[in-house]
């Protein structure tokens, strides 16, 4: 096998403060949650805080450094986190004896409705699915911190309006709702005429 230098991070272009970059990298590795640049900045003691821009530069340089390594600094909804590159996940997944959780269709459909149609009430979800929504599904979604109550609808009973959280996006490895797959619809038609009144 030929020796290649591809895996060696090259940081020739980094003009920022080397020490700040080292600290930012250590913080990103040690954090148990994704971190925003603002949050990283605030880990520094008040009198030694770098400018936000310096943190951003450091993050960019670190991202660059790991370009050819088996892990990457990835931006998700609630900040940056180090994660194993997807092409290696098939190996890494063998590390864990426990099978990853499987989610039922009922849960996934409920989650999809909340994600694509938010804000929605429980009643809305039931209308779309045509069946009652079990409390345990809503509870599971809330415990996983994928959904939260984002307000109340001003109708009798003031039902809670549900929406998704940043943790939901983090879990699915994306930054914004826009990155969700686009909705594809089955075009049913009525007597040969497409139904144009359908909501989209």
């Amino acid at each position, binding site marked *: 096998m030929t020796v290649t230098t591809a895996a060696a991070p090259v940081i020739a272009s980094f003009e920022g403060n080397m020490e700040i970059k080292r600290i930012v990298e250590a913080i990103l*590795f*040690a954090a148990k949650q994704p971190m925003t640049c603002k949050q990283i900045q605030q880990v520094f003691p008040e009198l030694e805080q770098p400018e936000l821009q310096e943190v951003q530069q450091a993050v960019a340089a670190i991202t660059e450094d790991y370009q050819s390594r088996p*892990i990457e600094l990835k931006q998700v909804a609630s900040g940056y*986190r*180090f*994660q*194993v590159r*997807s092409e290696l*996940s098939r190996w*890494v*997944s063998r590390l*864990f004896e426990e099978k*990853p*959780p499987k*989610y039922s*269709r*009922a849960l*996934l*459909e409920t*989650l*999809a*409705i909340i*994600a*694509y149609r938010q804000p929605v009430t429980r009643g809305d979800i039931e*209308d*779309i*699915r*045509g*069946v*009652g929504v079990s409390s345990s599904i809503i509870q599971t979604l809330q415990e996983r911190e994928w959904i939260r109550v984002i307000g109340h609808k001003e109708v009798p009973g003031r039902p809670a309006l549900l929406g998704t959280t940043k943790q939901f996006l*983090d*879990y*699915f*490895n*994306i930054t914004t709702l826009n990155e*969700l*797959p686009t*909705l*594809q*619809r*089955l*075009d*049913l*038609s*009525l*007597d*040969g005429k497409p*139904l144009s*009144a*359908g*909501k989209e």
Partner: protein
Amino acid sequence: MENALEQAPAFAIVNGAPFNQLPEDLYIPPDALEVFLELFEGPLDLLLYLIKRQNLDIVNIPVAEITQQYIDYIQFMGLLNIELAAEYLVMAALLAEIKSRMLLPRRPDAEEEEDDPRATLIRRLQEYECIRNAADELDQLPRLEREVFVTEVDSSALAIEQHFPDLELKELLLAFQDVLKRVDQLSHHQITKEALSVRERMATILAKLEGENSLLFSQLFIRKEGRHGVVVSFLAILELSKERLIDIIQPEPFAQIRVSAASSAQVETETEHD
């Protein structure tokens, strides 16, 4: 499972007109049918299945036929004593209503179409289908614990300074004052220096006795403290005795008085580290 069922021999479709004399569904053994129903997430899901199966190249939704099939299913479930969610029956009623309205003569009114009960149903089916696909795609997305693995870098070895809340002596006194107020012990509105010395001496003596079989009475006094100190120690010993925290023993007349922690044989020494 679902796939297998979808691959079941399809109806013949002749010029878009479905050939549905033989609902082969009814040949599915009852056990399979039960499992089959569990695959459905509700009446919309079941309806979509029926529609998709029947209209491989749909241009039209034959409500009447779908209704018939749906009701066949429901009835068959009933025959098998499979408990159905109420929603399935509500849908059956809705379909029956639509079907009966379809039997009425149509007016060639433009307005009529908006009122077409089929349109509402079809829109709901569309919306549901759309969400069903979205749920499938969501399930396919790479996600944490399955395809996405975050790095675990240990930081437990780092010295993390523990921060304790600050406390001022004044707060402690104020808290004590509150306690006293609450118990309404007017006689305790002042803590005299003397009383406190006695309490402290009690603690000192107990600590001294701990781990010892017994001490000479005289060992509990510190000569250089003078008369005041002796009085305080003596009061402390009396108080401890009264509270049965110590035993005062004189083995025989005129022998030296010894003091021990109450039943010192059992006193545990685990607590003393100072």
